[in-house]
């Protein structure tokens, strides 16, 4: 546990001391929150479009922010792998599990902090916009986003292990764009229906966003748990896959 704590602390410090993490992990999602709220103000009520109303938007933006945690996880790992720092640690008694936990833990903490800040800002925006939001719902939404957090950190671990620091961010950008689009953050996937909704339903992103939105609204009807279970299932699969890939890669590096 000492090894994990020490390594996790190092990773956490490395991230919070990198100005880019504030720009991408906090700045960008929060700017989108404000911009989309302004967009919502410009949409006439008769259009009946509520996707960008702050009570709907908050869960989506919280999800969107987590995709940047994936980007940072992958960058941290890819950067470590390209330098001699990890080589030095490979020569210590640290085992692959210590490395994996040491990467996942601080990123998980970062993801939770990011979600809390997003919902706090959303609450402030809701007060300004005159839209009612339940603080308890937002707190539950942070918990509902836990599977998504695991999913994104696991994707980060996977891409950071497999690709170098040039390729990993590119791949993450695809997931960021696809994830937020097919997650229904920027459009009403259910209203659109058809093949697009079918694709959304197959992937975990839509379910992650839906679970967060429903939790925000304290709507715990049957679908909520289905959305949560599907996201958790994906998260578990990607987590296991990333662990296996990391262990194999570490073993190959020591060949």
């Amino acid at each position, binding site marked *: 546990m*000492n*090894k994990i*704590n*020490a*390594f996790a*602390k*190092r990773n956490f*410090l*490395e991230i919070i*001391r*990198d100005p880019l993490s504030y720009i991408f992990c906090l700045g960008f999602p929060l700017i989108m929150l404000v911009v989309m709220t302004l967009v919502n103000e410009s949409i006439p009520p008769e259009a009946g479009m509520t996707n960008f109303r702050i009570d709907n938007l908050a869960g989506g933006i919280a999800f969107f922010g987590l995709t940047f945690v994936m980007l940072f996880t992958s960058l941290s790992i890819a950067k470590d792998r390209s*330098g*001699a*720092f990890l*080589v*030095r*640690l*490979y*020569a*210590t*008694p*640290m*085992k692959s599990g210590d490395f994996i936990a040491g990467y996942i833990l601080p990123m998980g903490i970062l993801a939770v902090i990011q979600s809390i800040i997003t919902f706090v800002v959303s609450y402030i925006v809701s007060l300004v916009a005159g839209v009612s939001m339940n603080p308890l719902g937002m707190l539950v939404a942070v918990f509902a986003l836990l599977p998504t957090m695991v999913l994104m950190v696991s994707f980060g671990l996977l891409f950071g292990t497999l690709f170098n620091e040039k390729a990993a961010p590119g791949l993450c950008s695809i997931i960021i764009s696809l994830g937020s689009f097919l997650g229904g953050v920027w459009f009403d996937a259910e209203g659109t229906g058809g093949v697009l909704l079918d694709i959304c339903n197959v992937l975990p992103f839509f379910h992650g966003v839906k679970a967060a939105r429903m939790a925000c609204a304290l709507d715990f009807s049957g679908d909520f748990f289905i959305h949560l279970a599907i996201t958790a299932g994906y998260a578990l699969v990607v987590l296991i896959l990333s662990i296996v890939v990391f262990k194999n890669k570490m073993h190959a590096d*020591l*060949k």
Partner: protein
Amino acid sequence: MNAIETKKLTKRYKTKTAVSELDLTVNEGELFALLGVNGAGKTTTVRMLSCLSEPTSGECFVCGKSCIKEPQAVKEIIDISPQDTAVADNLTVFENLRLICGIYGYSKEKTSAKIEEMIKLFNMDKVRNSRSKTLSGGWKRKLSIAMALISEPKVLFLDEPTLGLDVLARRDLWSVVEELKGKITIILTTHHMEEAEHLADRIAIMLEGQIAALGTLSELEELSGKQGLEESFVAIAEKYGKKAAG
């Protein structure tokens, strides 16, 4: 007990044999230099001895423990300062040292004592709170060695420790390494003749993955019939080249 022992240690890549049937023994407390040009197999040898690379064949032992069968036990008693500076960029000097103490499970008291000991030994007091990325190459290299030393290794591997350093920084680092002589076993890889001449108890000249000659400076001079390590090295390399060609 020997600090290092290798038996027919070999590392083969797809098209190249980096280290070939290396037989080597290093005594405890010795400062042993692996001297050779780039690509001679020095770093590969160190990587195998520090469990960072599996040998293709042969055996290697550190303080009697097998690098192949007991890598975890070996990792408990060694540390390495790799060729490239291996420090956490956004951490301060103090935090980098604390990280290694954490990895080795030191108590709070021992961590504080060891950090102060390293800061004093390497004269790092004025940079203790500076982030590593702001340090000069010389300070970074010192920190890298301090991070290796803080784990109290029985065997310390210094892979090209003065690579890329200016003459003053190099001399500064030599004085630190000299202070460690006799206290722990040090395996130093270098292609600087002057460095090996200045620091090492014994020198192994590595050429094309094999040891071409091994001994103290005077033994190497006697073997080559030349004065000074550089002249001896050239003579031995030429003789080895002719032997390999013939």
